[in-house]
């Protein structure tokens, strides 16, 4: 079965169709793929608590009237989530890490004593300092090494709703892996394939094939020199139209979109105010720019305001000269937390403080909003209010690379001054074609598949809500905002991190587990990425397995409370 066909299957569950009913009583599947008739906006987008969600469902009209969500709800909820962490779990998690680190040092100590030949690379040899210092590599060798089998699992074929893993075993405690030659198909809850466009067949792949026949494979130069083609220019225009800005610039790699473009926007004498959980590429870009960097607490607009007030009133350090520019850098959807940035409040601050706003929509574009246009669409704000809209094609569009969109002046400047446009290879033809084809489909401009884009968007929204809700009902501790296609589930203890991944693999489910340094040391988690190409059966299967694993690993921290809450509701 083609993966595209799977994506078009819509759940028939009355419960979710009811939830997806809009004011006019239009059913989800029959909406004409245009705008406006999106059911999911009605549900309060910011109230993560499932109880609140259910209570408010019947009175959806009321919720629709107040389209901007109450800002405090989210903060309160998060506080309670973290306070709800039983102190026993906190203590045991810290103790586990302590034990791991003590054992790591002990093993290193005795290893160096008895097998010095294995530690040659950590010593000064031949007058050369070791390439990787002892302490730096401790984490990699002794902690990451233990669970290396949970990462870099090679695959073959398409990372769609299901993925083919190359089976591998290790006979030397994960130092090396051997391939058994078997390939196993597993349910994929790991890839960023939100709209199910990771496909090797179907209309998009056909368009890519046609494009390669007409335009070749690569651009053979940089965008600013000889790499600009009609195809590239057309795709850039389409991206601009898609996100709702005047113009856009396409970059051939997602990481580079941030790392190589921020330096063209700010420099010495400027200030970057960055969310503490921003992606590594944003950090690299900020460092390369030479601007001062200040950090505010994750998604905390009050802290952002405090930082801004202090920075603007004090000016540059030492000289107290006023800042040339201030760029606030946030992400639309935080991929490790599943949280949306609080855009309306940020825009209110922007009006007051006159900074420029940079929103990284790597995960949100295509996946959020009734029309899939990202975080602005989700909140219903004008994308032109955001100065720099950055996004990637890797996730929702099943392609690669990224874009920067904004005013024409901004993009014209970047075409000549962005490091990526001037020095890096231009986007290759198949990727451009994939971006164009998938975007056209989402916008409903593909005449032969006019409804498919909207169906995929709706399917993703239904799947994400269903999955997160079922997990919470089981008593798991999940993070993230309702409707986020990224659903993190807290594991805490370092021993449960590989255990969860391995148990999942045993049951043919591919998941991503993350721990320090990608997350705070205490909140190791598994991250599920929901896709429109998952069917209800896929999700139910996964949920059953996860429930079993949850019992096995004692992860249902909320189990008791949920029963109490249910009893209360029944009263």
């Amino acid at each position, binding site marked *: 079965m083609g993966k595209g066909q799977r994506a078009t299957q819509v759940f028939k569950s009355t419960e979710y169709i009811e939830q997806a009913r809009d004011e006019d009583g239009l059913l989800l599947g029959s909406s004409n793929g245009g705008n406006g008739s999106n059911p999911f906006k009605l549900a309060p987008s910011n109230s993560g608590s499932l109880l609140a969600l259910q209570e408010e469902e019947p009175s959806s009209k009321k919720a629709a009237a107040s389209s901007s969500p109450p800002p405090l709800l989210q903060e309160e909820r998060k506080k309670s989530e973290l306070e709800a962490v039983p102190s026993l779990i906190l203590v045991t998690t810290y103790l586990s890490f302590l034990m791991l680190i003590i054992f790591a040092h002990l093993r290193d100590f005795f290893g160096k004593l008895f097998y010095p030949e294995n530690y040659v690379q950590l010593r000064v040899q031949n007058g*050369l*300092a070791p*390439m990787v210092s002892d302490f730096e*590599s401790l984490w990699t060798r002794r902690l*990451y090494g233990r669970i290396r089998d949970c990462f870099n*699992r*090679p*695959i*073959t074929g*398409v990372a769609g709703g299901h993925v083919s*893993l190359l089976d591998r075993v290790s006979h030397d405690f994960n130092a090396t892996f051997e391939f058994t030659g078997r390939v196993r198909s597993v349910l994929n809850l790991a890839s*960023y394939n939100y709209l199910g466009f990771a496909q*090797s067949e179907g209309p998009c*792949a056909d368009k890519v094939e046609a494009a*390669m*026949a007409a*335009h070749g*494979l*690569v*651009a*053979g*130069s*940089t965008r600013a*020199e*000889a790499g*600009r*083609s*009609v195809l590239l*220019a057309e795709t850039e225009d389409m991206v601009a139209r898609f996100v709702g800005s005047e113009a856009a610039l396409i970059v051939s*790699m997602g*990481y*580079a979109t941030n790392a190589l473009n921020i330096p*063209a926007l700010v420099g010495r004498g400027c200030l970057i105010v960055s969310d503490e959980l921003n992606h*590594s590429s944003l950090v*690299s870009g900020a460092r390369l720019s030479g601007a001062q960097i200040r950090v505010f607490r994750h998604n905390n607009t009050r802290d952002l305001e405090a930082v801004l*007030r202090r920075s*603007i*009133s*004090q000016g540059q*350090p030492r000289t107290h000269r006023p*800042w040339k520019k201030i760029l606030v850098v946030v992400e639309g959807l935080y991929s490790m937390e599943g949280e949306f940035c609080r855009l309306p409040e940020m825009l209110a601050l922007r009006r007051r403080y006159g900074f*420029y706003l940079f929103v990284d929509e790597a995960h949100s574009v295509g996946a959020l909003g009734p029309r899939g246009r990202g975080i602005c669409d989700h909140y219903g704000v004008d994308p032109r209010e955001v*100065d720099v809209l950055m996004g990637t*094609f*890797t996730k929702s*569009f*099943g392609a690669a690379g990224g874009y920067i969109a904004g005013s024409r*002046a*901004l993009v014209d*400047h970047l075409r*000549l001054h962005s*490091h990526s446009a*001037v*020095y*890096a*290879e231009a986007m*290759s*033809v*198949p*990727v451009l074609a994939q971006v164009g084809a998938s975007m056209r489909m989402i916008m409903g401009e593909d005449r032969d598949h006019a409804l498919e884009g909207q169906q995929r968007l709706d399917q993703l929204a239904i799947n994400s809500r269903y999955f997160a809700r079922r997990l919470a009902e089981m008593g798991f501790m999940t993070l993230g905002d309702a409707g986020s296609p990224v659903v993190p589930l807290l594991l805490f203890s370092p021993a449960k991190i590989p255990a969860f991944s391995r148990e999942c693999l045993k049951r043919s489910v591919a998941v991503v587990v993350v721990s320090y340094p990608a997350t705070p040391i205490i909140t190791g988690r598994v991250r599920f990425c929901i896709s429109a190409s998952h069917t209800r059966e896929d999700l139910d299967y996964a949920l059953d397995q996860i429930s079993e694993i949850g019992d096995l690993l004692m992860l249902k921290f909320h189990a008791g409370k949920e029963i109490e809450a249910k009893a209360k509701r029944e009263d």
Partner: protein
Amino acid sequence: MASQSAASHLAPLLTAESDEDGGQRGLFRTAWDFSFRMALRYIKNSYKDDPFRTFLEVCLIGFIIWYMTKQKYNIGNNEIELSEKEIDELVDDWRPEPLVPELTDFERETLDKAALLDGPNGIKVRLASGNGKALLNFASYNFLGFIDNPDFEKRAIETLRKYGVGSCGPPGFYGTLDVHMELEKHLAAFVGHSAAILYSQAFTTILSVIPCFSKRGDIIVADEAVNFSLQQAIALSRSKVYWYKHNDMADLERVLKDVNKQLTGRRGKNALPRKFIVTEGLFHNTGDISPLKDLVELKHRYKFRIILDESLSFGVLGKRGAGLTDHFNVDPHEVDLLIGALSYAIGASGGFCCADKDLVEHQRLSGLGYCFSASMPGILAVAASDAIRALESNPEGHFSSMRENASLLQTLLRRIPGLQVEGALESPLMHIRLTPETLVRMKRSGGAWTKTDIDRVLAELVEEAQKDGVFLTRAMYVDEHERLLPNSSIRICVSCAHTRKDIEKCAHAIKNAVSRVTSKKR
């Protein structure tokens, strides 16, 4: 009833507790008294025994108190205390600069006239503005003609039908394809190094590899003429950097000696930082080749490591096309970190780093561009594999004609009066610019040439050549960010797929263009 009886039952217990409480308090007081007296006696005795020690101890306590109070007045912090109202006023007054400056007239012109290719890139290209006329392409990095090789298209479609386009995840999270691993193995074997790791963009490869190993406190000695990605990578690493004169081994030796001299006195943890020589195989900005043999000798003599950017030289230099190490017959292991690109000669996209196994594995977690970005599309990985296979099976067919073409074009160009040619003879990449004398002659008023003036003349030259059917490009730079901005030039890339006639046509077109441009007084 029940509660009453319970209360009465508890009554004696409660009183007993309060008694006990009093007893505890008494006990606590005696303990306190006792310890106080002990301390007092200790101080008295110690003063009697050794008054100097008491003096020292008092000084120590005084120092601690002074030190703790000092912390409150942070010297680095010269913030002014402001009232909320004052802050509001300052916020109201603050006017930021526009996010981007306005384009200059010349920049606007450049954007408006930028080449827009209609159809595929290759030896012949059509411009959207060119009425369907095919131009000979000397602008794209198509050294080996891989860009317009029809065999690859078939393979690309096969790959598309198996792998789709995007990999939908970073390599760590189910983004590692079997074709990536095959390409990594293939690259390591082709270069002759121990292992290789793939990145999905050439620029970012360099930007990831150098900061992965060279950290704050480490030392980088770099060639002055290195390309922009190396400059950025060095900046991102925050290492201490020393520059040596372009390809000047005597100057490099001087710098290496200096660095080692500075380190001789050092003790403690940072006594021996990591030390790297950073240079390029085939220089992007000059078309020169690094003297690798000398570099290796110096590296051993002064205990440095080499980071070599072979982005352009990979697939271009050497008998087999394996790059600079192949060209000089140097063991590739002598180059500690060998960085290459697949987006130039190979005609795909992305880059790679060859190094020892440990160092490659380290990058899989610490190479930011590897760990935090999606892996390369399978189609491009297969295209790169195929290109390398084609090189392996028929190196002569690709290189001899490319080198012949390169040296022929250089010879022809050098004959053109008023034109300066830069680039090594083996290099299929060269820079041309007008000689300073010509420029002086061109200016009627004899005034000085600004960079924009020169750029404008070169842009005219490119346009003129286009009229004669030859597609060229100026070498573009982000002027304000380059450490040492190279002189403006037109960069010419020769391909093995060019015929002798093509080369002659190119030289002829440039000759005509130069004479037309220089005859115009301004």
